[in-house]
């Protein structure tokens, strides 16, 4: 299907046919001869000493090949890594050793203690039942407040308190701003703990080839190369003898941007058993031992003028980061700090964060990673300001917006917003919503005792992660573009798509750029033996950074193709154009050459211009000069049922600006999923640990995810403000929906309850909470 211009077209995802036909291969689809299955015994206690482990009966169970305890591996497998532990960035940081299997003490429910490998998964699971662990339960900590309380039990006994680290950021003159203010508007804001819940849980298959001293590790990961580096360090193997493969990955949302105990453990077991091993995470294990998101609670103060002008912001916050760090744990709240000013002009800002160890799973990157906290905080506070000053929340937004002529714009937190036009997105959304009519409808319904609410979120977020200077583990990206002798194009990309659709969007860019049919393009990713080193897929970076690396590599290929074409056509390179997928001299398309014809010449090597290397493959490593800053306006219209407290989302309007759009269908898909997850935080989701540190929301019976019937048909549109950071002018859209939607829904629900005098309610806005508030007033 030749398309004259692929970029910008609504092309269906090329990866979908294999997925909807059941032909995609995930980790659990991998079968190897003599494969052993691993099950893991996990702590039922949040905090306990281990006084002994008896594995005799498990070892004697028929079919069991190996039982591994923490003592067995403590000297052969290094600790689970954290990439953000610099004490200059995180004053006072404590970095506890994070073993793959607990020894001496367990610190959260779900912590791995013993691994069993057996001939099938059922035997492995049965063997766990035969293991006896002598626990001495200790008091547990289930919140940052509890961690800092006098006499709190100490989680890591190398230190004498549970303070994990501090972090702060300050810009402008906060004291002057507060001195100048007519009022100080304060509110305590809670960002509840969330479980990422990808459709595919984690899973690992490991195989050791003794003849080559090679470890092959298949993992459901977002970062195959970073994982390879870390696994080689943890296992003490040469990195070029470790191959990591991310096969089809069924969603990650940040939770697979990590290095987990099981990845190193399985690698070790495969090597010492010289037999392949497989572990597939159960859903209940996933709730307990795959990273969680958010879990910050803090006090916000805004210095404001009576006309709604915001002068400054102070945020004093504690983060409950769990018992250990995972790969990026301390870095996540720093992204909150960078984005505290939102879309607004105030530059006097200060955030002081204190993080606590608690007896919970670690927090880390979950879709949005630090920015949903910033956006929810500032967007919610704008509405609190409007409430306190009796202004329209729109008026407060408009009064404080950064103007479109101010870009590039340096914020009080010293980040440089690349481009933006916040008013344009807001105006477009208001027009779609017919705002005046909505307010009239709201007033009319209130007279009937019905509670309609209209909520805004005029967000800006930071994505397209790097540059490297601002990243804990590299912010660049890589690509190789090669053309086979027959003209088929293969792209190797360092990013690791797992639902973002780059097999389609990258092919669109190549199709247009090289003049080749999209069906002749293959995008390869996720295999460290095949693909040059890359950083991976997270932080809405794959297209903005990885796509740019590819476009540059493609440009090098194209230069060479044009040179060869000019030589063959006895012309000059500057006179060569691509028309109808043929390289021709301008004005003479009939004598044009296809990419395949030129590629054959490049590989036969005979007719090349003098000094030209044979072959047709080029690589590029791209270091972005800045982040990108997508923005937009989301408007939610909800009705809260006075009898039940239930929230019905009646309309959802989203105008997102992610710069130039390569494939509108994929952008819409990302926005749909993003909105759904953000609404999940607003209305339904909450990971709760009880006072004894038990996670009491550890299944889908207890942890509510949004479902399709919870949503109306989304009304989506875009404004397009290209980013100057990359040649495509793209920004990224993987997380914008999540970041934008939570405050829009919260503001709408609270607006609906305005007749009840409600000023703020903590998330999630579940019916019983709203119903009680409506009864009280």
């Amino acid at each position: 299907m030749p398309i004259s211009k692929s970029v910008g077209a609504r092309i269906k995802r090329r990866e979908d046919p294999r997925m909807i036909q059941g032909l995609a291969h995930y980790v659990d689809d991998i079968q190897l001869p003599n494969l052993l299955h691993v099950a893991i015994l996990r702590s039922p206690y949040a905090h306990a000493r281990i006084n002994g482990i008896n594995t005799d009966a498990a070892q004697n169970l028929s079919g069991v090949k190996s039982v591994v305890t923490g003592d067995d591996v403590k000297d052969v497998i290094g600790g689970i890594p954290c990439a953000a532990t610099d004490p200059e960035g995180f004053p006072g940081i404590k970095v506890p050793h994070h073993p793959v299997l607990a020894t001496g003490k367990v610190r959260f429910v779900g912590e791995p203690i013993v691994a069993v490998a057996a001939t099938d998964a059922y035997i492995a699971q049965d063997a766990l039942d035969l293991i006896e662990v002598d626990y001495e339960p200790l008091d547990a900590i289930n919140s940052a407040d509890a961690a800092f309380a006098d006499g709190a039990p100490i989680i890591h006994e190398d230190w004498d308190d549970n303070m994990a680290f501090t972090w702060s950021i300050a810009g402008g003159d906060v004291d002057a701003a507060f001195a100048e203010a007519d009022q100080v508007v304060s509110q305590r804001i809670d960002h509840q703990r969330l479980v990422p819940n990808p459709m595919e849980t984690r899973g690992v298959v490991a195989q050791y080839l003794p003849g080559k001293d090679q470890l092959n590790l298949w993992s459901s990961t977002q970062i195959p190369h970073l994982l390879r580096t870390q696994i080689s360090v943890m296992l003490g193997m040469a990195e070029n003898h470790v191959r990591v493969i991310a096969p089809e990955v069924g969603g990650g949302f940040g939770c697979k941007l990590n290095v987990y105990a099981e990845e190193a453990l399985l690698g070790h077991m495969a090597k010492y058993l010289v037999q392949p091993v497989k572990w597939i995470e159960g859903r209940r294990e996933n709730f307990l031992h795959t990273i969680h998101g958010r879990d910050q609670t803090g006090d916000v103060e805004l210095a404001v003028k009576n006309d709604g002008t915001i002068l400054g912001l102070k945020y004093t916050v504690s983060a409950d980061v769990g018992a250990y760090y995972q790969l990026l744990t301390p870095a996540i709240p720093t992204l909150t700090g960078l984005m505290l000013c939102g879309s607004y002009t105030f530059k006097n800002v200060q955030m002081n964060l204190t993080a606590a160890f608690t007896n919970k799973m670690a927090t880390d990157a979950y879709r949005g990673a630090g920015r949903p906290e910033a956006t929810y905080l500032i967007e919610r506070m704008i509405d609190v300001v409007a409430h306190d000053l009796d202004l329209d929340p729109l008026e407060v937004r408009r009064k404080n917006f950064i103007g479109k002529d101010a870009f590039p714009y340096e914020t009080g937190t010293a980040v440089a917003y690349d481009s933006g036009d916040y008013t344009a997105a807001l105006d477009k959304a208001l027009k779609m919503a017919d705002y005046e009519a909505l307010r009239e409808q709201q007033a009319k319904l209130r007279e009937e005792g019905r509670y309609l609410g209209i909520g805004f979120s005029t967000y800006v977020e930071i994505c397209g992660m790097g540059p490297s200077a601002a990243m804990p583990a590299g912010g660049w990206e890589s690509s190789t573009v090669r053309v086979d002798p027959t003209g088929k194009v293969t792209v190797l990309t360092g990013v690791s798509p797992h639902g973002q659709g780059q097999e389609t969007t990258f092919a669109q860019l190549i199709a247009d750029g090289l003049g080749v049919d999209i069906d002749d393009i293959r995008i390869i990713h996720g295999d460290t033996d095949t693909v040059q080193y890359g950083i991976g897929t997270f932080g809405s970076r794959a297209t903005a950074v990885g796509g740019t690396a590819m476009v540059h590599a493609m440009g090098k290929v194209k230069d060479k193709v044009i040179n060869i074409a000019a030589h063959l056509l006895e012309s000059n390179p500057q006179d060569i154009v691509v028309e109808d997928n043929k390289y021709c001299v301008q004005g003479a398309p009939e004598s044009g050459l296809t990419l395949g014809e030129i590629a054959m010449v490049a590989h036969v090597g005979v007719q090349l211009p003098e000094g030209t290397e044979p072959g047709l493959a080029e690589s590029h490593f791209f270091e972005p000069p800045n982040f990108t800053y997508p923005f937009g306006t989301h408007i939610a219209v909800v009705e809260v049922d006075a009898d039940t407290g239930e929230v019905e989302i009646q309309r959802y309007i989203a105008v997102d600006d992610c710069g130039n759009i390569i494939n509108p269908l994929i952008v819409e898909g990302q926005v749909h999923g993003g909105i759904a997850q953000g609404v999940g935080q607003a209305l339904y989701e909450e990971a709760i640990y009880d006072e004894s540190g038990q996670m009491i929301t550890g299944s889908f019976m207890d942890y509510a995810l949004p479902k399709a019937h919870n949503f109306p048909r989304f009304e989506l549109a875009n404004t397009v403000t290209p980013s100057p950071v990359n040649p495509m002018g793209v920004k990224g859209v993987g997380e914008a929906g999540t970041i934008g939607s939570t405050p829009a829904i919260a503001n709408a629900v609270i607006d609906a309850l305005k007749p009840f005098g409600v000023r703020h309610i903590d998330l999630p806005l579940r019916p019983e909470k709203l119903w009680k508030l409506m009864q009280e007033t």
Partner: protein
Amino acid sequence: MKLTGKHTIGATVERAFELLIDPEVLARCMPGCDKLEHRADGVYDMAVSAGIGPVRGKYTGSVTLSDIQPPERYTMVVDIKGTTGFVKGQGVVELAPEGENTQISFEGDVQIGGPIAAVGQRMHAGAARLMTRQLFGAIDAEARASA
């Protein structure tokens, strides 16, 4: 989790008390009880099969009766664990005459951990009520049958 309740047993207080601390009766009446054997002074070894929602498993451990004041009251401590978690509880059981019958009231505190704690938390109280109702219902039936 707090656990309280009242049940009526169709027997005198003395007879009801006898039944309540008779391991054979309890083994028959307790839902899912696979074993209940007297080990030492007031300490019984117990094995039960139980489950909430999809999390079902076998639990072993002990039940300890103490502060036994026939026929009025005793204290019971349950400490069992299994592959799907652990249950620790302690409570006071009191008996009082109610006409020709006996009213049993109990009040206790139960701690649940591990996988069973993570699943169906909102059903725990209901499941516990159901199990105690089954237990005392069965003891009542024994009492009436032997009357």
